[in-house]
């Protein structure tokens, strides 16, 4: 061995063995949270039975909730046991075994805390929902099943309007957004004025609240262009949503196009493909695949914003829900409208996830 200055006993000293971490604190934390969770859940169970006047279903649900809240006691007990084991092993100088016992105990303690915290959150939410003031509660304001039954037959066809508006607007947005994105990336001096127009459009329409655009278009266009006075409001609503969301989607496309490595464009150009051919066959297909997740984000926003059309008097689901709400003095129909949006949005997210996975699998040959 020669002294190189890179290696020496001072530079690389022998390590000191690591000591097992304490367990008791974590175990006590688990115990404390478990007890709080159980106490809150017992209160919840009592409230739930009272709310339903001691009916059998509520008794069973209350019992299940309380039993579930007992679960964190089990990992708490394991944590305490591991803590005792750790002390015993440490006494016997079994350092490695003591470290293992400590790690196990701490993990059990953390598991107890995690489940107990979840029980506390659920209990608090239910307590708020069941709390009554002068005969009113969260539960019967939002979850009155008779109100749901009455409003449902009118709400469902109204929601169809939302779906239809969203789908048509999305198709327009896909095309118009891509045109804007390409306009923003036109090269050279010749492209400069068009780049500027696209830039201003995106800035302006991302700045204006969607509801303002809807007002301006749905109420303004029939006044400004008398020929359009007979156009259905839903079509003008689609125009307004398309104008707003194209600005967002153009930005998404642009980010996607910019994320394709310049070497792809170089390879295409070197084969003799023109700028337009390169864009169409190489850049756009790759960019679209990359932007599908953020695109879905904007599409979900668009779907939700179809509810804004109610402000312009278009007969979609929120408008109908508000009529029922005024009729019944109860917000349950509005919650039903919310449920409709949830029901159509979640499967879409999963569907897009699957599409992306399938495309990735195809390219990797799986």
């Amino acid at each position, binding site marked *: 061995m020669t002294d190189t200055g890179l290696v020496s006993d001072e530079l690389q000293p022998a390590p000191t063995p690591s000591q097992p971490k304490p367990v008791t604190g974590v175990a006590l934390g688990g115990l404390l949270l478990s007890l709080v969770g159980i106490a809150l859940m017992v209160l919840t169970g009592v409230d739930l039975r009272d709310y339903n006047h001691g009916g059998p279903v509520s008794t069973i649900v209350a019992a299940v909730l309380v039993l579930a809240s007992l679960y964190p006691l089990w990992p708490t007990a394991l944590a305490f046991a591991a803590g005792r084991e750790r002390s015993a092993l440490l006494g016997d100088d079994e350092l490695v075994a003591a470290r293992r016992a400590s790690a196990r105990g701490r993990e059990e303690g953390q598991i107890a805390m995690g489940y107990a915290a979840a029980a506390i959150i659920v209990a608090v939410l239910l307590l708020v929902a069941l709390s009554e003031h002068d005969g009113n509660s969260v539960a019967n304001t939002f979850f009155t099943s008779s109100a749901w039954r009455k409003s449902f037959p009118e709400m469902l066809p109204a929601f169809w309007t939302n779906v239809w508006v969203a789908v048509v607007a999305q198709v327009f947005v896909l095309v118009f957004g891509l045109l804007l994105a390409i306009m923003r990336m036109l090269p050279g001096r010749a492209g400069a004025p068009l780049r500027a127009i696209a830039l201003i459009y995106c800035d302006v329409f991302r700045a204006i609240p969607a509801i303002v655009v809807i007002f301006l278009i749905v109420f303004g266009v029939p006044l400004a262009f008398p020929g359009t006075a007979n156009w259905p409001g839903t079509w003008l609503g689609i125009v307004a949503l398309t104008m707003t969301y194209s600005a967002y989607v153009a930005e998404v496309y642009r980010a996607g196009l910019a994320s394709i490595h310049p*070497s792809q464009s170089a390879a295409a150009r*070197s*084969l003799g*493909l023109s700028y337009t051919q390169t864009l169409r066959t*190489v850049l756009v297909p*790759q960019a679209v695949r990359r932007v599908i997740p953020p695109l879905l984000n904007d599409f979900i926003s668009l779907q939700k914003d179809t509810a804004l059309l109610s402000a312009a008097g278009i007969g979609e689901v929120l408008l109908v829900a508000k009529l029922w709400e005024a009729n019944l003095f109860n917000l349950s129909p509005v919650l039903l409208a919310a449920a409709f949006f949830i029901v159509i949005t979640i499967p879409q997210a999963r569907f897009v996830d699957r599409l992306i996975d399938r495309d990735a699998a195809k*390219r*990797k040959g799986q």
Partner: protein
Amino acid sequence: MAFLEIDDVHKSYGQTEVLKGVSLDVERHEVVCLIGASGSGKSTLLRCVNALEEISSGAIRIEGDTVSGTGVDLNVLRRDVGIVFQSYNLFPHMSVLENITLAPTRIDGLPKAEARERAMGLLESVGMAEKADAYPDMLSGGQQQRVAIVRALAMQPRVMLLDEITAALDPELVGDVLEIVRELARGGLTMLLATHEMGFAKEVASQVCFLDQGSICERGTARDIFENPREERTQQFLSRVVQSGRL
């Protein structure tokens, strides 16, 4: 008049001059190897010949016709001059066959069946026919590079530019790719290649140019350059290559 003439080419990026007056004549059927350290301008020179980079001054001529500067139909130039890159740059969303037939069908207007036939013939000769329907991500680096060479060849270029095409490959995959280049050289394809594979340059090059800091420092036959380098900088470069075990 040489087939490919590079005449006093300068290229700057802002204040940095990357090529400082490079002149080089390449005859038909010649294989010219560019060697030199990273940043010496090898890649930039190749990219300039293909007009992927615009040159600042000087001229590039193919058979006497100037192909650099404004007003040149780049799409015509690039049909004549193919390039293969270090990082393959296959199109990941297309199968091997689609990668190869894209340019012939779109630009030469070749019917699909004919383009397919041409592509399959070329794939056959590089031992990749059974991968025609695979996607680039399913292939090893060496296989991707072979496809990239075929993609460039499918346009039937008269000059091929190879930009360190084995630099990104695992050592055991380099041989297959070099074998194809050897085959092309035997077939008489005019090639200009930047490479770090000194042994290979020695074997195939009819002319070797050592680039240093943006200009050609020394040129000659492979034997001249590798065995009797005259310039001190060439000697230093080669001795560093030997030290790293690459020659």
